[in-house]
């Protein structure tokens, strides 16, 4: 799950509750990826809200969650180990039982052999084939019995947890076997002494029942053992069942708890992040009234608070900026009106008088009127320059982009300055490319630039010529104005495009002008996306030139102040 908070231009809206944050970053919550996918689609704020409201740091919450899950796993492991341990214990018990069973089985085999040996003696006697050896064999066999008993005793001693009942039974067995042995030895002596009949009578009367008694004891023991083994087996089964059920249950509980915990924590983190992201997007779109409310009282809660505060501050700042801008444009409009209105009267009435509306003015007055008119026009030009510069400085200058013909622009300027040039006996040469393409730009401003440059050329050239050329190539209009004036020094070349700088203050102050013209021209050209320059050598004259794209982009009205400052 990747969250992006991207950079965008901030819009405008006045509000006291918004915030400002400008960040760019990618945050990956890789640890809980599947859970974050879950968090996006399930509701369950009743789960995540209490978690969010916990007044603890996110790191702490995550740590606690992680430790809890670990703990659940440990418990699960412990339970598993416990079950294994129990199983092991049961196996050990079964092994012990098995050993005992083996012993008793051995015993039973001996008893069986004994029985058959005695039977052999009995039938041998009837047939007259039995001998001492044959009679001794069973006795030796019953001695073996004692050894086997000893083995059982040993097992008993090693497993002290054997129940008392079994111990008693073994004692019973021992008694019976001891008794049988005594009788067996007596039988042998009787047989060896030659009282075969008496011996056999003893066999029939005493030994057989005593064998039966031993067998009976053995049977009791082994069936008790059998019962015990069955009991153990069923207990074992029972314990396994219970164990399995508990383990399964706990596994479900553990997994369920872990998932729930994971979901709760992650959604208590993701929800606010999503809300904040949405809020920031709204702020970026200019809506400062974004309603950001998160339940969290941890770092995310603080973050949300910061976002709210910053949005509010931004909204406020922007509102002030907007108000200031309004104020500025209003001021400029007022200034323009206030300055131009009196000029209207001065120049207007002068013209009316000159045109004889109030009667033909006397010859003597004509000259004075002419001066009033000329100075008025001068003043107007200065006012216009100042207003232009004010507009540019205030960032309120905008170009009126439309189609125009560069040849018309240049020709009209030529028409304007030709009389002035003639007065100074300057030759005006023009070289305008034929059939130049139609351009897009602000024709009025471009005319202003051409007039400024050509006007300067005429103003600052005392003799010789002024040539203007205009051509279109490589997608640019290039206009060059050459004059045979005094030339401009290297140092002055750097500064003349800056406000209030004229090349040589003393000689040119007489020529009038604020020195704003070139500065304004430079801005106008640059706003079209073009450039302006001068080539000059002292003594031989100067060439001013500019080039603008034939199709100046409508977007090119950006504030050129920054560019100015970096140059």
């Amino acid at each position, binding site marked *: 799950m990747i969250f992006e908070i991207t950079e965008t231009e901030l819009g405008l809206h006045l509000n006291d509750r918004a915030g400002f944050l400008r960040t760019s970053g990618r945050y990956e919550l890789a640890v809980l990826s599947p859970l974050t996918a879950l968090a996006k689609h399930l509701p369950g704020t009743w789960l995540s809200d209490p978690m969010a409201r916990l007044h603890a740091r996110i790191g702490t919450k995550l740590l606690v969650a992680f430790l809890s899950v670990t703990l659940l796993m440990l418990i699960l492991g412990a339970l598993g180990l416990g079950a294994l341990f129990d199983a092991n214990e049961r196996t050990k018990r079964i092994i012990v039982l098995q050993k005992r069973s083996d012993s008793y089985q051995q015993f039973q085999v001996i008893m069986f052999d004994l029985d058959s040996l005695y039977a052999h003696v009995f039938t041998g006697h009837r047939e007259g084939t039995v001998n001492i050896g044959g009679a001794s064999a069973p006795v030796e066999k019953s001695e073996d019995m004692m050894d086997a008993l000893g083995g059982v005793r040993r097992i008993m001693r090693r497993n002290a947890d054997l129940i008392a009942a079994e111990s008693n039974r073994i004692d019973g067995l021992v008694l019976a076997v001891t008794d049988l042995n005594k009788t067996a030895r007596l039988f042998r002596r009787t047989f060896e002494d030659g009282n075969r009949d008496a011996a056999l009578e003893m066999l029939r009367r005493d030994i057989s029942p005593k064998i039966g008694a031993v067998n009976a004891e053995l049977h009791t023991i082994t069936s008790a053992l059998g019962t015990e083994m069955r009991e153990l087996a069923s207990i074992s089964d029972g314990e396994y069942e219970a164990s399995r059920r508990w383990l399964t249950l706990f596994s479900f509980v553990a997994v369920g708890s872990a998932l729930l915990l994971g979901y709760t924590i992650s959604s208590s983190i993701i929800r606010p992040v999503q809300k904040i992201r949405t809020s920031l997007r709204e702020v970026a779109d200019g809506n400062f009234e974004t309603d950001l409310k998160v339940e969290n009282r941890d770092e995310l809660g603080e973050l949300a608070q910061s976002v709210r505060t910053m949005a509010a501050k931004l909204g406020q700042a922007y509102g002030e900026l907007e108000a200031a801008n309004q104020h500025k*444009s209003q001021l*400029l*409009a007022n*200034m*323009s*009106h206030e300055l*131009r*209105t009196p*000029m*209207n*009267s*001065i*120049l*207007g*009435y002068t*013209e*009316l008088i000159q*045109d004889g*509306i*109030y009667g033909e003015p006397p010859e003597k007055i004509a000259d004075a009127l002419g001066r009033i008119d000329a100075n008025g026009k001068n003043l*107007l030009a200065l006012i216009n320059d100042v*207003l232009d510069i004010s*507009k540019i400085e205030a960032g*309120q*200058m*905008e*170009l*009126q982009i439309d189609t125009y013909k560069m040849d018309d622009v240049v020709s009209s300027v030529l028409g304007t300055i030709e009389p002035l040039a003639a007065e100074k006996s300057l030759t005006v040469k023009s070289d305008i490319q034929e059939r130049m393409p139609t351009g897009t730009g602000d024709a009025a401003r471009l005319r202003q630039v051409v007039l400024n440059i050509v006007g300067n050329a005429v103003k600052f050239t005392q003799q010789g010529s002024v040539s203007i050329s205009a051509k279109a190539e490589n997608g640019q209009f290039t206009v060059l104005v050459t004059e045979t004036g005094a030339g401009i020094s290297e140092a002055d070349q750097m500064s003349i495009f800056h406000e209030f700088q004229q090349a040589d203050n003393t000689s040119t102050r007489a020529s009038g002008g604020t020195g704003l013209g070139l500065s304004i021209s430079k801005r106008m050209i640059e706003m079209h996306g073009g450039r302006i320059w001068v080539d000059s050598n002292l003594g031989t004259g100067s060439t001013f030139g500019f080039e603008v794209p034939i199709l100046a982009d409508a977007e090119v009205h950006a504030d050129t102040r920054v560019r100015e400052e970096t140059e």
Partner: protein
Amino acid sequence: MNKRVLVIEDQEDNRRLIRDLMGSVGIDVLEAHDGQAGVETAFREKPDLILMDIQMPRMDGYEATRQIKANPDSTAIPIIAVTSYALSGDEAKVRAAGCDDYITKPYSPRVLLAMVCKHLNKGE
């Protein structure tokens, strides 16, 4: 019958200027000192042309133009706006309000006269 031009302008200097200018070619001049009076005079007198100053207090030239153009009785009267051309949006605003032409201050009276005559003669 003399042509009649209504001048809606709050500055006396400018009104006098236009009065003298128009008078020199035999055009009668009606005057109004503000937008409101101008609108009323336009409805009442139905002049042949209106010279509308834009920057006026209370009701400005745009609003007065809109009202005059909105009235079917006066909508045909040509209106020439006189503006100080402060900001680049002015020309568009002038046209949007319904003006037929405009001239920027300070203007040459000769030029203004030529424009007035052009619009007056258009009707014939």
